[in-house]
């Protein structure tokens, strides 16, 4: 196997492109990002790395605007993400120039996926070590969520997770996703999904959403208090769930009595 991961364009005998798989490993080491699509709202949630003391946290952008109506979160190598985001931003404006129309979320996802694929089939380059979640609201006023990965695959998703513990989070989403969720429920699901893997709570979570009810498509960022409010609401619900499941003292005594008689 070891001979086949050197040059990128070479398949291994059993059909693997090892460089692409190693890129996916790099993605798995990146911070978690979650996307949820509701009826009128689409939400992106990202795990923020705990702030290094001397670093100015405001300069670390995890959710990036591609155009006024589309934005992207990625997991993996930050520098690769920056390069891909810049390529996508240029393409958004280029599209507006030639076609006199803003890009659709599908178009730009397809473009980003195309760029990622090109880097798996060119000489002397390595794949981008990132997967992306792309959210936006098109002119048809329908919220959209797409995802791409280092192989250049892209697909639309109802909800997805990328990065650290993505498998766990995706399973959580599969269990708890409800179609056509309203705005509040979509936000809550995204936060709940992130809380599965982000132990430290609201201060390490960033949430951005877009909704069709805005006259002009805008990306909204929740501030830390709004996220804390959601976290508290979720905690209370979890406690209520736990209370219901706990057997009461009287109930268990009755069980003992009936078991012995």
């Amino acid at each position, binding site marked *: 196997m070891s001979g086949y991961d050197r040059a990128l364009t070479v398949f291994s005998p059993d059909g693997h492109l090892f460089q692409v798989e190693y890129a996916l490993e790099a993605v798995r080491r990146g911070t978690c990002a979650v996307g949820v699509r509701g009826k009128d709202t689409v939400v992106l949630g990202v795990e923020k790395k705990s702030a290094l003391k001397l670093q100015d946290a405001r300069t670390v952008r995890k959710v990036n*605007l*591609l*155009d*006024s109506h589309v934005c992207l979160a990625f997991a993996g190598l930050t520098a690769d993400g920056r390069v891909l985001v*810049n390529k996508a*931003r*240029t393409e*958004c*404006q*280029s599209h*507006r*120039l030639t076609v006199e129309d803003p890009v659709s979320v599908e178009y730009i996802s397809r473009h980003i996926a195309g760029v990622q694929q090109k880097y798996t089939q060119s000489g002397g380059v390595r794949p981008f070590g990132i997967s992306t979640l792309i959210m936006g609201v098109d002119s048809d006023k329908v919220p959209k969520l797409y995802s791409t990965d280092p192989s250049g695959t892209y697909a639309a998703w109802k909800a997805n997770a990328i990065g650290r513990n993505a498998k766990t989070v995706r399973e959580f989403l599969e269990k708890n996703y409800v179609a056509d969720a309203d705005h509040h429920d979509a936000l809550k699901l995204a936060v709940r999904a992130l809380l599965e893997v982000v132990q430290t709570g609201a201060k390490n979570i960033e949430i951005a959403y877009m909704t069709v009810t805005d006259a002009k498509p805008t990306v909204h960022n929740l501030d830390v208090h709004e996220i804390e409010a959601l976290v508290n609401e979720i905690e209370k619900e979890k406690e209520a769930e736990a209370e219901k499941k706990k057997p009461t003292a009287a109930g268990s005594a009755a069980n003992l009595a009936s078991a012995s008689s």
Partner: protein
Amino acid sequence: MESLFGVVGKDFVVVASDMSSIRSIVVLKSHEDRTRDLNSHNVLLYTGEPGDCVQFSEYIQRNVQLYSIKNDVPLNTAGCASFTRRALADSLRSRGAYQTNLLIAGWDPKDGPRLYWIDYLSSGLSVPFACQGYGGYFCYSTMDRYYHSDMTKDEAVALIKKCIAELKTRFVANLPNWQIKIIDKDGITVNVVEGSAV
């Protein structure tokens, strides 16, 4: 046959462009928009070779937008003018030079109102008032006579209308409709002045 005017006021810029699209002896269109809003506080006005004008102006418009998406902050007027002049200069000694004369007008919180005059040879200058096209031959004298610094909106618009009236008297082509834009801290306001209403 196209003309552009611009006057910098106290805390705003007023610009005007005629709206007639003329080829030889035919008026093709009477409400042509010879401007492109670069962002919320900057406007580019163009005259010159028809295809070049639109291609170049829209290219600049898209790049100004790209700048603000990339850098999370809108490009200021000086930046717009620098970028435009540089793009024009680079194209000058290339296969496809753009034959476009421009005015770039805008307002930003740090520098206040600014007006830039850029010609097709890529000379660029920040000026208190300017003309592009034949209008300059007739109206620079009007502007010299009546311009003073810190004009109010009414005074500046009146000066522009004096220039338009001068062209109506002395210029061979009939330019009935004019688009007047005022850019200040609140953004861009548009006014179309038609026919004999000047």
